[in-house]
């Protein structure tokens, strides 16, 4: 049978509020019985392992003598009345002798001694009583981590308990416990010995069978017996927390579905949104009037998709941390985000937003490898729609460039063509628009030179031969054409876009 230890005494109902003020080093001693001491004479026949309760007559110097006599007789501890000033010297003596000194209320020392004696002879029953008490209180509590952790921390004195995410972030409870707990990666209930004592770990398993959170209790050098009680207590508490997590997950998924559906409606709809959609938009707190900047964040690793809904809160928080507070909506392979503005954002503001977002993507927000696109500001529902669409287009190019990249739709220029199906009417009109500067009659030679140059695989000599002009003339015309279009033919994606555009708008005029 595991013995009751001195360290557990403050957890006894009869000694509620008691504290071990000195002699902690001896607190793992087993308590075999308890004696009420009203005169130091009574210490003479004290058996080993005895917890000594001093009556109110024995204070000050008598506590010091009791400590000494207790030590000589291998007693478990000395419990004195708390209504006295204990000198530093007394603390030092208890520390030196490794004789725990407890201060307690002891209003009814006789009853306390009896209760203590019973607890010492039947520790299992007492532990059971502690756990039953805890279970009853857990059942009566709202199933929220804060309440559950508050209960654990109040009912398991001397024990700091916290709830951590799988990667060690503190969710609830005492940060004292999280210091060590952050490194814990157990997938089954476990115990660890640390410098200050013990850690008791209980993983909370998520719906996918993996560790979703961990309950971590930090015990200061506590006895194994108490660690047993704490381990069972954490097991009891894991139930309500699992239930809470499941409810939260369901709620998040329901919300995500609602947001996703609504966003799809908005993106596909016309300017005249129906009343029903408008009311749902209002219920979610979205604002469609005014100016918006659309952002699309695309998951680089498709396996992350399963956790997409679960990561939304963390991602929202990470964005807010870089002053990108907005609506975040789950999409199939990432998130659509938009940020509202009171007035049309200046190009400077846009540039800064992009810089902050780029920096954020580089440091894997919420542990995710993301690439992103950011659209130009747009006004009203249609402006939002356009901005989000542009952002998504830009994100496609950013994804091709690899995780951590951000593309601004405004910077896409000619490359936007690469996102549009060749041969479609859209492509044709976009190509027309982009090549417009070269379609003016006086610039016709420039267009011809550019198209021929691209067709001739960028060979100036071949182009010169085909056009019947000097090679230097080709070079000059191509350079002027690029300047007018704002493209750089050294960039393969731009070169390809220009080439495709040339083919879309029609044959060269020879």
């Amino acid at each position: 049978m595991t013995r009751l230890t001195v360290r557990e005494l403050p957890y006894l109902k009869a000694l509620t509020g008691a504290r071990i003020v000195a002699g902690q080093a001896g607190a793992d001693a087993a308590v075999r019985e308890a004696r009420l001491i009203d005169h130091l004479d009574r210490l003479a026949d004290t058996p080993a392992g005895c917890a000594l309760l001093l009556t109110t007559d024995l204070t000050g110097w008598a506590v010091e003598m009791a400590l000494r006599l207790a030590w000589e007789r291998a007693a478990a501890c000395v419990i004195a009345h708390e209504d006295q000033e204990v000198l530093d010297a007394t603390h030092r003596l208890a520390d030196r002798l490794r004789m725990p000194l407890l201060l307690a209320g002891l209003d009814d020392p006789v009853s306390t001694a009896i209760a203590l004696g019973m607890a010492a002879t039947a520790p299992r029953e007492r532990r059971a009583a502690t756990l039953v008490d805890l279970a009853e209180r857990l059942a009566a509590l709202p199933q929220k981590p804060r309440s559950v952790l508050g209960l654990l921390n109040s009912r398991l004195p001397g024990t700091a308990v916290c709830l951590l995410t799988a990667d060690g972030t503190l969710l609830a409870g005492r940060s004292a416990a999280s210091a060590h707990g952050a490194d814990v990666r157990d997938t089954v209930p476990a115990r660890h010995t640390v410098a200050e004592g013990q850690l008791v770990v209980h993983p909370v398993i998520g719906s996918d069978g993996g560790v979703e959170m961990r309950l971590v209790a930090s015990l200061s050098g506590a006895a194994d017996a108490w660690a047993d009680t704490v381990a069972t207590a954490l097991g009891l508490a894991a139930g309500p927390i699992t239930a809470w997590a499941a409810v939260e997950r369901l709620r998040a998924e329901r919300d995500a579905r609602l947001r996703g559906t609504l966003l799809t409606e908005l993106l596909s709809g016309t300017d005249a949104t129906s009343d029903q959609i408008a009311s749902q938009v209002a219920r979610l707190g979205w604002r469609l009037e005014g100016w918006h900047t659309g952002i699309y964040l695309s998951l680089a690793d498709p396996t992350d998709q399963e956790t997409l809904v679960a990561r939304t809160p963390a991602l929202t928080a990470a964005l807010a941390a870089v002053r990108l507070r907005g609506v975040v909506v789950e999409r199939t392979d990432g998130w659509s985000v938009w940020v509202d503005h009171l007035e049309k954002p200046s190009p400077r503001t846009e540039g800064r937003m992009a810089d902050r977002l780029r920096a954020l993507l580089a440091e894997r927000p919420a542990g995710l490898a993301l690439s992103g696109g950011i659209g130009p500001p747009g006004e009203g529902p249609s402006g939002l729609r356009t901005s989000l669409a542009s952002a998504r287009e830009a994100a496609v190019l950013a994804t091709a460039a690899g995780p951590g990249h951000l593309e601004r739709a405004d910077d896409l220029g000619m490359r936007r063509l690469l996102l549009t199906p060749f041969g479609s009417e859209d492509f044709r009109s976009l190509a027309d628009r982009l090549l417009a500067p070269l379609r003016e009659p006086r610039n016709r030679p420039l267009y011809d030179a550019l198209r021929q140059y691209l067709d001739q695989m960028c060979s100036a000599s071949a182009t010169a031969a085909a056009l019947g002009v000097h090679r230097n003339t080709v070079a000059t015309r191509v350079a002027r054409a690029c300047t007018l279009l704002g493209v750089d033919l050294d960039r393969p994606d731009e070169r390809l876009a220009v080439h495709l555009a040339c083919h879309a708008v029609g044959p060269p005029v020879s």
Partner: protein
Amino acid sequence: MSGGPVTAADVDDFVLGAKLLSGGGASHGTMPARWLRHAMATRGDVRLVPPGSLPESAQCLAIGFIGSPTIQSEKLPMVGQFAEAVRVAERRLGHEVGALAALNAAGVNALAPLLAATELGLPVADADGMGRIFPNVERSVFTLAGLDVGPCTLAGAQGDVMIIEPAGNMRAEALIRPATVALGGWCVAVLYPMSAGLLARHGIHGSVSRVLDVGRTLRRAAASDEPRGHRLAAGLGGRLLASGIVAEVHRPSRRGFPSGAVIVTDLDDPDRSVRLETQNEYMLALADGVPLAAVPDLICTVDHDTGEPVDIERLHYGHVVDVITLPAAPAWHTAAGLALAGPETFGYALPRDQGDR
């Protein structure tokens, strides 16, 4: 040195010795010493005689001050205050007084019989009733011998004299304390009238000359450059409990008598702490929970650097002191003696096997 005269040249040593023997009790300023010096300078030396050398039937009285030494320094004594008290006592007793004895030859009270002797021209018997300071008049070896404390004659500084005849020694304190307040906060007390034979049989012998001896030992030790500590303790016939630094001075102000605790951390072994429990005087010394000395034995503190006795009131954090215990008179270590003035009577219920060390 019993038998010789006490002269004006001895006053400083006598006062020093009295101070040490007060066991940390309240200091009494310089007034009584000046008073004694002046009295001796004007009226001559005091004869100190062994009680056994007096005629068996000579009437003796125990003399002391009762009340507050602080008030005494402010409400100065009256000329002839001792003589007045002794004259009234003589009238009540119907005998002329042959010699004076000390109620307790320690602290300011050690000076009382000498002052009285200068006023009355009587010899001082070298004996007292306590050998130290106790806060109550009944705690004396005379009580142990069954002698009556009364009639008690009390003389105040305003010329009032009271005679109190308690129904028993244990009643004396209850009557004398309020009378002392009425007499102005302090008074000269003439107690325990007895024959020289009884004094010789029951009194603590040599306790007045011991005051002077202790004072001389202290003065010599203070003048010498050699380390004090054990040497001083041995020279005083006692034991060194610790040489250490005062680490804590605890003076709770709840009860009537100033009581508290002083923690002295040993200079040689900083892990060792000596705890001194105080009630006006040092009552109990513990080292790490083990009793080292307890009332009725005397516990005193001496400045480690100067060799001066230090009283509890002046102790402060960081003070380096020698803690010395001097044994009480053997009468105090009898069962009856401990029952009257043992640790338990002061609230220190030590375990039986450790109550009398």
